[in-house]
């Protein structure tokens, strides 16, 4: 019934290569866009919007990490550090030079990209787990630098307050304003990533992931593309860091420590390596999970256990469930939520027939 390709004819190559060539795809995207642009922000309470904002920020970061880990196959545990580079660059520019937020955003991203390329240099020689630990070293060194170099960190406290972004005369301060602000960048990031992986650069990345020696033999300069992957991924991370700083109103390196890097890795693995939709699913899942666990424990826990035990249990339960779900996904569906979604989709594609 929902067989998608029936009756769809294209007459030019460009039309056929479009992102959404099928009418049902266009409709779906339209509905989802309507939902996120109009329905959600106008009806939900500010608290839920603040959660949505956290999700948007995570989506951008997850997309960036997936470019590096999912599409190029270079495992990196340094994502948090690149975010902090972007955050502090923007914060310093905002407070020292009073520059407007577009400049800060771009500068933060570019600075993070540069640092990311430097951290990616060992990828020339090192592979696999060894490279992952080398990026971990990068994370620690960057953290230490920001912590100790007061020029960057703005003093002993190592946190810099940034003024709210201004759009003309409007100051963006409520969660609803933030929501629209972030949504624009999320859309840009998603569209950008989707186009990146369809392009020549994206194909080079995938070739490096699959068979890097063969890729080198057929003429892809793997060192250059590896560095490019690190740089682009760090650009996304830097943007995430800047947006997060604007969301909070303050840049603080303790928000970008190794736990964050591991969270983002969890997002893309649970979501599905090497897919845009997977990054989005993963980001939503990992961000919402602790909140959902807490809400449900608060609602139901009181029925079984005294309050103090519940309070002690909730955060530990969150840790346990987080870990259990990761392990569960890895055992049951190693390709992540994305594969799950595709299975559902292909089921409906030929429904009600079986094959």
């Amino acid at each position, binding site marked *: 019934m929902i067989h998608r390709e029936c009756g769809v004819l294209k007459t030019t190559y460009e039309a056929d290569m479009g992102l959404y060539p099928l009418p049902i795809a266009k409709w779906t995207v339209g509905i989802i866009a309507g939902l996120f642009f109009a329905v959600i922000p106008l009806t939900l309470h500010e608290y839920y919007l603040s959660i949505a904002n956290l999700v948007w920020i995570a989506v951008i970061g997850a997309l960036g990490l997936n470019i590096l*880990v999912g599409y190029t196959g270079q*495992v990196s545990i340094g994502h948090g550090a690149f975010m902090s580079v972007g955050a502090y660059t923007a914060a310093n520019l905002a407070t020292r030079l009073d520059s407007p937020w577009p400049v800060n955003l771009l500068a933060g991203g570019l600075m993070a990209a540069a640092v990311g390329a430097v951290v990616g240099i*060992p990828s020339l*020689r*090192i*592979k*696999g*787990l*060894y490279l*992952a*630990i*080398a990026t*971990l*070293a990068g994370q*620690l*060194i960057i953290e*230490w630098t920001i*912590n*100790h170099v007061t020029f960057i960190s703005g003093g002993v406290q190592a946190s810099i307050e940034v003024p709210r972004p201004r759009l003309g005369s409007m100051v963006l301060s409520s969660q609803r304003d933030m929501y629209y602000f972030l949504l624009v960048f999320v859309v840009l990031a998603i569209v950008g990533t989707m186009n990146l992986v369809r392009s020549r650069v994206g194909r080079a990345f995938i070739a490096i992931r699959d*068979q890097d*020696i*063969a890729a080198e*033999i057929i003429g892809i300069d793997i060192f250059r593309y590896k560095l490019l992957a690190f740089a682009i991924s760090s650009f996304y991370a830097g943007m995430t860091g800047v947006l997060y700083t604007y969301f909070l109103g303050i840049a603080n390196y303790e928000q970008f420590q190794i736990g964050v890097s*591991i969270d983002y*890795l*969890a997002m893309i*693995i649970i979501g599905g*390596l090497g897919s845009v939709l997977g990054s989005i699913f993963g980001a939503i899942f990992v961000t919402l999970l602790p909140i959902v666990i807490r809400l449900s424990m608060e609602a139901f826990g009181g029925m079984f256990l005294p309050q103090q035990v519940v309070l*002690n*249990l909730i955060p*530990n*339960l*969150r*840790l*346990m*469930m*987080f*870990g*259990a*779900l*990761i*392990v569960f996904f*890895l*055992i049951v569906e*190693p390709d992540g939520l994305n594969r799950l979604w595709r299975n559902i989709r292909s089921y409906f594609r030929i429904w009600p027939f079986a094959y």
Partner: protein
Amino acid sequence: MSDDFGFFLLLMSNGLLIGLMYGLIALGFVLVYKATDAVNFAQGEFVMIAGILVAAALGVWKAPLWLAAGLGIAAMIGFGFALERTTLRKLIGRPVIAVVMATIGLASILRGIGPTAFGAGSRPLPLPIPDEPIVVGPLFIPPIQLVGGLVSLMFLGGFGWFFVKSRKGIAMRAVADNQQVAMAMGINVQRYFGLAWAMTGMVSALGGIIWGNIIGVDVNLSLVGFKVFPVVILGGLDSIPGAVIGGLIVGLVENIAAGYVDPYVGGGTKDFAPYVLMILALMIRPYGIFGKKIIERV
């Protein structure tokens, strides 16, 4: 300047002994990797759980030391077996990152279980080892470090012999080298995987006892697991002597950084100095000092 030299000797001895103890934890990591090609990001949490079990046995159930230690070791061996049977067996053949994430998830679970089952407070792990340092000239040697270093060397020697000379050890190396051929030769691959994880459990138990005595048993005990990485990367992921040498180097570098670099830069270099050294070493020898080079074919 003999005072300064005395201090230097102190730092060296401290570094070497602590390095041996890092090697003990790294040994657990290397054992698993050598036998099953699985990367265990939860090594620190293993040590923590072992420490919690033994500390609880000593403190809550008031068991004598030999019983508590034996209980801890037995429990961890059982834990290793159980873990391999239930979770890790299903992940054989998956890419590196899947196993890494699985162990990270496992680490998260263990970090949650510890405080839930045993309470969040920090416990001491008293051992019948005196606290006062042994004074040898300008050197202060805490007895616990000496014991830890000895235990570490013992295990390293023991496992080294095991892998080279004993039948089971050679079988395990065969399994690590090429699973399918090993199976074809009649080696029960799954049983050896279980054995590898059990050995890791045992090593973690001892690590938990010793480190628990040094830094107290609570959630933070799992953080010694982070020290494992520069040690195994420097030494080579699948090399047992590499775990010793890597541990010694990391211990020395940390103490030198803390003693001589920190005062100039305001502190904190101690934690990442080993990582810097590690990167430099990797650029020269990408598989660690003693690691096995992986030959890739197209």
